[in-house]
């Protein structure tokens, strides 16, 4: 089984979010980048398939050279090889188009992407890849097993979960549950050393239409300070929730 794990290189949650150039660009100054958490669950599950079922795992990212540390980290965690599509991602469709091209040419059986990235939170790339390729697609996937071409998976739904069956080739939008947080892999020294010698292929992007573009960013208005209510005066809290906030 050939697995492709799509990796987004995103600002760490604790990063300060600022914009530059007249609020038209994300200000990368002083921002720490990490592998998108939803992708990390998928990567660890892919490594499980590699160790238990002899799968090969390729990681891919659409981005500039500055995103390579995330790919190197994925290699150190255990991926066999990496691909970087050398382009500045403009919108979800552009990224999906690039990834669909990589998938078509690489003949991957299972493609694991995170259900959404922490930066733009679009949540659209996995579905768009499936739409472009016409492959089977599962979103919000919390568990997956593969036996030959047959796949059993679990999807989170509002208020519960759904067990599904499908077949390869398959695209999934994954999340926590594919593996538990405590089972996430972190690179060890040997992994970091061998990662240096693993292949990182750089591909040039294919053309894609510009469907959408981010024209401007805004930050929410500063929040007014919390109103503290004395624990001896909970009637006041109920009064505020009823008359001021109007939520009860």
């Amino acid at each position: 089984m050939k697995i492709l794990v799509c990796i987004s290189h995103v600002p760490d949650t604790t990063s300060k979010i600022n914009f530059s150039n007249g609020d038209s660009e994300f200000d990368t100054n002083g921002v720490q980048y990490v592998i998108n958490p939803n992708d990390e669950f998928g990567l660890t599950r892919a490594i499980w398939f590699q160790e238990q079922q002899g799968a090969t795992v390729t990681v891919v990212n659409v981005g500039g050279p500055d995103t390579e540390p995330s790919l190197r980290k994925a290699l150190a965690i255990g991926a066999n090889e990496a691909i970087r599509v050398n382009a500045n991602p403009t919108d979800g469709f552009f990224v999906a188009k690039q990834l669909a091209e990589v998938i078509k040419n690489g003949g991957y059986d299972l493609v694991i992407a995170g259900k959404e990235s922490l930066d733009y939170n679009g949540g659209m790339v996995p579905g768009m890849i499936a739409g472009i390729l016409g492959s089977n697609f599962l979103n919000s996937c919390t568990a997956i097993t593969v036996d030959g071409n047959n796949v059993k998976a679990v999807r989170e739904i509002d208020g519960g979960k759904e067990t599904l069956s499908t077949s390869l080739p398959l695209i999934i939008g994954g999340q926590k549950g594919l593996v538990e947080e405590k089972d996430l892999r972190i690179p060890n020294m040997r992994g970091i050393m061998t990662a240096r010698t693993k292949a990182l292929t750089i591909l040039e992007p294919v053309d894609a239409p510009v469907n959408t573009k981010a024209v401007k960013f805004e930050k929410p208005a500063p929040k007014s300070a919390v109103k503290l209510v004395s624990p001896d005066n909970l009637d006041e809290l109920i009064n505020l929730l009823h008359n001021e906030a109007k939520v009860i």
Partner: protein
Amino acid sequence: MSILIYAESAEGKFKKVAFELASYAKKVAESLGTTVTALTVNTGDVSELAKYGVDKVLKVNNDKLAGFTAKAYADVIKQAAEKEGTKVVLLSSTTDSIYLSSLVAVALNAGFASNVVGLPVSTSPFQVKRNAFSNKAFNITEISTDVKVLGLAKNSYGIFESAGSATEEDFNPSIGDNDFGVKVESVEKVSGKVSIADADIVVSGGRGLKGPENWGMIEDLAAVLGAATACSKPVSDLGWRPHSEHVGQTGKPVATNLYIAIGISGAIQHIAGINSSKVKVVINNDPEAPFFKVADYGVVGDAFTIVPQLIEKLKAFKAQHS
């Protein structure tokens, strides 16, 4: 030309998001000088939609669509959009609608903006405001394609009634076998409880509650308020509560009217997941807990004395106001 919405239902009844989507569509339609068509799938009585501004209902009734299959549903929405000559397709942000929306966008060669909050900033060029960076910023996105797909963020617009009536029309799209590559084997839904996704109010507990045996008061408080229960990540990691209750960045997102955090310090990952809730209340004995910085109302004190009192007072309040 009309705007198309997919009005989701469950067990034959509309979900609340369908009415929010209809209300939103009505306003967008007014600014574009057009009407609103709603697509329904296996919904019984659809007349309620007219109250929220829908002008026409396309009713699909088909046993093949009895269970949710994203590809088949996306295919139906695409055919409805083509039949109506729709330029704007509006979808909600339920798990199912998020699942199918990218498929709809690709099928219609449409530019897609998800997490849209508020009415379009401008209709020419077509620009919308979206949540981004885990609710720490907004992104104004311009959609330049002829057909546009928007995903409306949950609880971001509200439900508004408008006088009017709707015509109803049966619609029989063609549904191919290749739409069913993913099959539903079984569905497990927690019954008798409000789900986090559907709740107007969520009561959430953290490690400050000291152990799973103390969750009775969280459930009691939720019961008085008709709320769903949730928990922080450490609580689900410790196994005190099921993973399905974990809210936050890697858990379920919450965008309710009222979020009550009890014994939750407010780690940035937790806040990222609940920040689009409208009103936030924190009860914590540590006045330095970061949650107080993002909350609207706070009570500094011991949850074990405050929550039982609050339950009694709310019961009295509810009795008086019902």
